[in-house]
């Protein structure tokens, strides 16, 4: 900018015009180089994503078959699949989200509607943002301390609790953001009609913000479905078919983690199949969430 100004502010003789032209050329060159570098950075980002997806498709498709969905994990050399892991992941992610979502929505509502600038509101907002980015392995350790150790063992419930703790701040953030987008005139109009505030919030604001909140929930499901670290010390994993939440429960990420380091080809192949499954699931949820948000706002 300073460069731009100095070269513009010289009126006058030919010599200066020539200098300006030369300066202009060098400015343009710098600009071109930087623009090329930025394009390159973007291309690198896209190539990395492509590389990950290609690796997953390449190695995952080899192992993909109907068996993956119809059989539970089995001993090496036997016909095993990932059924128990897939179902375990679904159960834990969905119940975890179902528990975390209402809490998150209430907290988000509190922040947007009741405690905009109060010290308590600021504290809650701060803490929720910390939780949003806190290392998920610590949440696993925490749940291990409060639910696994005292209650004598790893369980599906412990896994669900860990995932619910991860869900809460995601839903808090989207709920608060979405509620803030609602114009105050709408609120005033509803209250002016004589409706109590809680009805105004539940029936008007939540309804208006529903697309955004659902987006948040989808993103939360996508996030917890791919989480490994919080489940290692909580739901642990289970080689057999089990839907008993008081027992250790299998999940896709933990199974992938165990199988990927194993000595057996068929287990490693299953790990890749699982990796492909989970990535496709998580990415489609993300894309769905984004499309939904854009079509409604």
């Amino acid at each position, binding site marked *: 900018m300073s*460069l731009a100004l100095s070269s513009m502010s010289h009126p006058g003789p030919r010599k200066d015009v020539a200098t300006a032209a030369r300066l202009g050329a060098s400015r343009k060159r710098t600009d071109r180089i930087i623009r090329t570098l930025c394009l390159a950075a973007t291309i690198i980002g896209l190539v990395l994503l492509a590389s990950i997806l290609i690796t997953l498709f390449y190695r995952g498709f080899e192992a993909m078959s109907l068996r993956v969905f119809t059989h539970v994990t089995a001993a090496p050399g036997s016909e095993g699949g990932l059924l128990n892991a897939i179902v375990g992941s679904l159960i834990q992610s969905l119940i975890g989200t179902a528990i975390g979502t209402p809490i998150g929505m209430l907290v988000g509502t509190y922040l947007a509607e009741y405690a905009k600038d109060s010290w308590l509101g600021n504290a809650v907002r701060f803490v929720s943002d910390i939780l949003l980015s806190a290392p998920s392995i610590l949440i696993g350790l925490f749940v291990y301390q409060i639910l696994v150790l005292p209650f004598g063992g790893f369980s599906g419930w412990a896994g669900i609790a860990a995932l619910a703790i991860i869900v809460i701040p995601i839903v808090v953030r989207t709920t608060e953001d979405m509620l803030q987008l609602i114009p105050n005139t709408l609120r005033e109009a509803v209250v002016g009609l004589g409706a109590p505030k809680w009805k105004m919030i539940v029936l008007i604001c939540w309804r208006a913000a529903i697309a955004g909140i659902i987006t948040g929930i989808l993103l939360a499901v996508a996030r917890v479905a*791919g989480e490994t670290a919080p489940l290692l010390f909580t739901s642990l994993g289970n080689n057999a078919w089990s839907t008993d939440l008081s027992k250790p429960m299998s999940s896709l990420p933990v199974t992938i983690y165990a199988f990927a380091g194993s000595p057996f080809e068929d287990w490693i192949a299953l790990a890749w199949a699982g990796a492909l499954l989970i990535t496709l699931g998580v990415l489609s949820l993300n894309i769905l969430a984004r499309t939904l948000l854009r079509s409604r706002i």
Partner: protein
Amino acid sequence: MASVSATPPRAASRRGSSLGDKVFALVCQAAGIFVLILLGALIIELLIAGLPAFRAFGLAFVTSTDWDPVKELFGAGVSIYGTIVTAILAIILAVPLAFGVAFFLTELAPPWMRRPVGTAVELLAAVPSIIYGMWGFFVIAPAFAQHVQPFIIDTFGELPLIGFLFQGPPFGTGLFTAAFILAIMVLPFIAATMRDVFEQVPPVYKESAYGLGATNWEVMKGVVIPYTRISVVGGIMLGLGRALGETMAVTFVIGNANRISTSLFGPGNTIASLVALEFGESEIGSLKLASLLALGFILFVLSFVVLATSRYLLRSRLKV
């Protein structure tokens, strides 16, 4: 909607609804307080569980570079070192890339390209971290071991002053590989924050600079960056916070060596990877388990400081 307008504003229902209001407000507030308690409990639980380690080794636990499960000597030094080195290296690698992406998306790309490319980069953040681990181990590590590292070790390893950074066998795994994977993982977070804050610069500022004949880069350097400087640093801190606590991807490629390696290609440890790798072989009540939980506490303090700083810096963005 219908039910609201159908409710006549009578005194009786007003009283009932004011009770409803109170209950609803209380429930919301209770949920908020629950979140506070959750974080408080997390900190306290980790501290209490790690206390035996702090008691056994004192404050030296934080600095000691011993981690010898056989002799029951534990210290956090090596893993703190690894955590910080990989996270900072990841940021050094990720920031220029993220800046490039954000600049491209806000100023350079044709409008039709912005959304799909932006989404694709953001999808990098959605890929589960264990996938990064597998990809890193099966794709990146062999490439590094066979092509990148031998070249760098032969070229720079013999140089004075900086040579030590690039010595040792080309394992393909180690601190640098971990940092590389982390860089890709935090790239979308930093890029997204940068893009968002770049977009918040009032168009009139940029247009007046363009009107004076400034190039894209001059506008970025002269207008956008000064205007968004603080938020950009906040976004970088957010990325740093993420990199500090990343677990699964790192466990695949870090090498888990309980010693400080001066070479960037050497193996190391991060707090999160050490906890994940060693937890299964720790007995309840053992000093080792307490030490792992104490490490968790230290990691929490580290991330808390970084994330709190990030949030403080990004506050100005929220108020714009």
